[in-house]
């Protein structure tokens, strides 16, 4: 729970993600949403890449033909389409998948309420 709150606070602090996701965006034009998306994307991307080491699950290019030998890890690869029989399977890689090799999140100092994702601001 604590680390999930840290992750939300991180994306809010760096990329205003909580602000973006909680706002009703239907009334706005695409150009305005697009402009905001740049802010959110830039900040959240920086936060993600500096705290998580992400690698593709499969090293092949997407849309390349792949062969899965019997005994592949079903948690790593999801089979779709005409799924039947036993392996080896021949198919096309539709998504390379993502693996978080490492994730280092900020930590709360003892006594800090992690539920405050972003403090209110009052200018004096």
């Amino acid at each position, binding site marked *: 729970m604590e680390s999930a709150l840290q992750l939300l606070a991180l994306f809010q602090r760096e990329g205003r993600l909580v602000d973006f996701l909680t706002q009703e965006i239907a009334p706005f034009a695409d150009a305005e949403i697009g402009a905001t998306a740049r802010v959110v994307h830039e900040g959240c991307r920086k936060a993600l890449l500096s705290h998580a080491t992400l690698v593709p699950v499969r090293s092949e290019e997407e849309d390349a033909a792949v062969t899965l030998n019997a005994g592949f890890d079903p948690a790593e690869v999801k089979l779709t389409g005409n799924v039947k029989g036993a392996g080896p399977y021949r198919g096309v890689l539709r998504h390379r998948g993502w693996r978080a090799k490492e994730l280092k999140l900020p930590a709360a100092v003892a006594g*800090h309420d992690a539920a405050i994702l972003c403090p209110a601001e009052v200018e004096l």
Partner: protein
Amino acid sequence: MTDRDSHGGQGFVVGIDLGTTHTAMACARRDDEKARPEVVAISQLVAAGTLDARTLLPSFLYFAAEAEGALALPWDAERRLAVGEFARARGADAPLRTVASAKSWLCHPGVDRRGAILPQGAPEDIEKISPVEVSWRYLEHLSEAWDARLAREGHAPAPLGQQEVVITVPASFDAGARELTAEAAMAAGLENVTLLEEPQAALYAWIDAMGDGWRKELRVGDVILVIDIGGGTTDFSAIAAVENEGALELVRVAVGDHILLGGDNMDLALAHVVRQKVMQAGGADLDRWQMGALTHACRGAKERLLSDAQLEAVPIVLAARGSKLVGGGVRSELTREEVTRVLVEGFFPVVPASARPVVRARGALTQLGLPYASDAAVTKHLAAVLGRQAGALARVGLPHDESV
């Protein structure tokens, strides 16, 4: 300074770049001949009550207001001041409670550098501290974060205070500023400190990166110009390769003034260009908070434009400050033409060797502040250094051209 042999080859050698805007640290094990220096991530407050490890420690110090309570760290629950990312962020929110550019104060001969003068213009509830103490606090933080990391990761204790520490200082630092840096290190508990000039460190790094190739690149008589354009300062030094009893030796032959002009000034200049465009397009003037965000956005846009020759413009978006993000922001763009004009013509114009920076007499008021460069043209400052040091090569017995 302790005897090196007393370490018995154990422990670490640690390099600290105590910069004007950022501080960084790298280490290598002493007992491993092949060890490569590794950048050390520095635990620091990045937001209220939130600790994160970053490779850079912004060189900012923030004094908590009474109502804020303590700025607790895992190793000190009662601390009333913060250094690093949170301090920098608070600096934008509450500038009078924040110290920035302490290193520039440390080498400012016009002020009492041991006097409690920072932050300038601080409210009365702050007990001001000296430029030396600010450097001490940064080094103390590095030491605490280092010790805490070793303990957290289950390593044998090796307090930073007892490691072989090298701190880099600008070649332009006068004897006083060097002494004060050593004093700050001592106060922070660093017992075994060597000061190394930054351009020398840069040259060693270059030699290291070249492998054995550097011997081909560098011959006796060569002079290397090291140009260090930092966040807040610029330094020029010339280092000559000379022969000493058959061995190649690198000797610093010239050093320019410590110029208070750097990348931050360039980003701010770009921000003012975009601000003008926003206002000309009928937008309201930007407030201080928006200017801060704009400067940050311009830095990112500049880096993209300068690293991708195909890009002609990069959109700039300032999000609304409140929680309603979409719809309230300011949109503009930074173009290649603007970056080229502001940076090349403003900061790096092509100038004759005889060019010199404009020096403006400083009024009584500004003398209280930092002596910022009044001419933004880095190339003019460089021309001045080269002109002034034309005789330097003769002094180390190298062939030289008298006409320069």
